[in-house]
């Protein structure tokens, strides 16, 4: 019959209106609950699955290439970095510059500058590292308020504390 599509279309949109509200009520405290997005995304059903960004974030996949991070020795809590300069030499863009002090086994990193604005996330620095000191993190919120894209050693260690080696290293085939 002519005009049947009109009724059919109206029915479809109506189902979406009451369907999403019904699901809201059925799973009530889920809006800003921790892990809310995981509870909402059942792909076989319709409903709201908008990510409400500042309250909840997607966890990136393990091989995601975000900002560089520095890792600590789990026993002493000191940075793994020995300031050998391999990453500085490997970097095609001159993103990394570092300073260290001490000789031989006592050599420690004192300053490490990482220019986020020029980094192309090629991961050559990580591959050149022999001490398991640096790794690309899953940090993707890299925007800044100022043109201040240079991260110092403390910032990199902070990112490292947040993400750690565990999943990232495993995904790249690195073992501790």
């Amino acid at each position, binding site marked *: *019959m*002519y*005009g049947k599509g*009109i009724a059919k*279309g*109206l029915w*479809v*949109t*109506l189902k*979406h*209106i009451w369907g*999403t*509200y019904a699901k809201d009520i059925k799973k009530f405290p889920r809006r800003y609950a921790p892990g809310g997005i995981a509870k909402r995304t059942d792909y076989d059903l*319709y*409903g*709201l*699955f*908008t990510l*409400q960004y500042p309250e909840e974030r997607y966890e990136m996949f393990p091989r995601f290439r975000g900002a560089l991070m520095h890792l600590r020795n789990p026993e002493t809590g000191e940075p793994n970095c020995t300031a050998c300069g391999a990453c500085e030499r490997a970097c095609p863009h001159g993103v990394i510059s570092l300073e260290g002090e001490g000789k031989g086994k006592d050599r420690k990193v004192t300053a490490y500058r990482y220019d986020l604005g020029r980094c192309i996330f090629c991961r050559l620095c990580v591959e050149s590292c022999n001490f398991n000191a640096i790794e690309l993190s899953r940090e993707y919120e890299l925007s800044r308020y100022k043109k201040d894209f240079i991260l110092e050693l403390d910032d990199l260690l902070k990112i490292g504390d947040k993400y750690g080696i565990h999943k990232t290293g495993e995904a790249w085939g690195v073992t501790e």
Partner: protein
Amino acid sequence: MQVLDDLWIRIAVWFRGLLESFLPPWAVQLTMDVLGILLLIVLGIVVVLAFTYMERKVIARVGDRIGPNRAGPFGIFQAIADAIKMLTKEDVTPTNADRWLFLAAPIVVIIPAVLLYAVLPFGRGMVGVDLNIAVVFVVAMGGIPILTMLMAGWASNNKYALLGAFRTVAQLISYEVPMVVALLTVVLLAGTMSTVGIVEAQASFPFALVTPVAFVVYMLAGLAELNRTPFDLLEADSEIVAGYFIEYSGMKFAMFFLAEYINLFMVAGMITTLFLAGWQWPILPSWLWFLIKVVVVIFLMMWIRATFPRFRIDQMLGFAWKALVPVSLVNLFLVALVAKVLEPGWARTGVLFVSNLALLAGAIAIMAQVARKREERARAAGEAAIKRYYGSEVR
């Protein structure tokens, strides 16, 4: 329940008594009139705030989105945030624009929109003025915005604005005709042109049940008058920049926006008054019934907007002149005949309801036949073209 029913009237009477205790009679009348006007204008603005929020939520839910949820709990202050944004924006007047006309258009568009509220019966005994020619007033005031659109389009000194205005005027004038005929059908049934009288005539049956055809025609024409989807091709937000108000920004644009939503409430209120028995129906207070019905009608309009794609300009005008006008005219004759022969009651309602449904089915069947013919012609023409191109063999 009786107290709730005439709550607002009691407040008005009490307030008038309060004023009479220290003011002369003419001052009391003046104050009450000015207050009434202010209340209607405030109602208009509240309506805009409420229904923009509702519209955004409904459209969002259709698309499985959340909609505004940042400003305040559940985003209820979104409309206020939008209003502040509009007020603080730069007000641009194009070079070589007709400055006074450009300024006048957004002011003139809002006046008839608010004026129309005067004849809307919001509840039992709650009407600005009980005009005995209220329906004519509605049609006349509904015609003024058409002039404004031409004013805005012409004053902008922009060919796209002017073309948009021409299109809008063509659309609105076309849809005025079936709208008026549908109104006339209701007037015939009610035997009065006063909106209050029309509501009272629907005590036993709402006119939507008596003449569904007039209801549908009025609804479609109302959507077209409001420039809403599926008739919103002057705005067509996903395809072109807005039509006649392309050059407007800031508060002047906000005035057009305001007028659009005030008109939305007005058309929904007229549909409620003319076809859904206005404030009648038992149990709940009359003004609450009116509000519920208006919200349901507006929801219906938003639902239609969320569902259907828009017409092409020739399809739209063709739909008005070739479908709506004949159907509404036939319906007018039908109603006039039956209303003359039968007395108001179950028999008349039944006969009209059944004949209206038959008319609707017949109209749809004829439209289907026409569409099928057109499709066949198009296919034949296509096949002929292929034949011409490839010779006798069709690959």
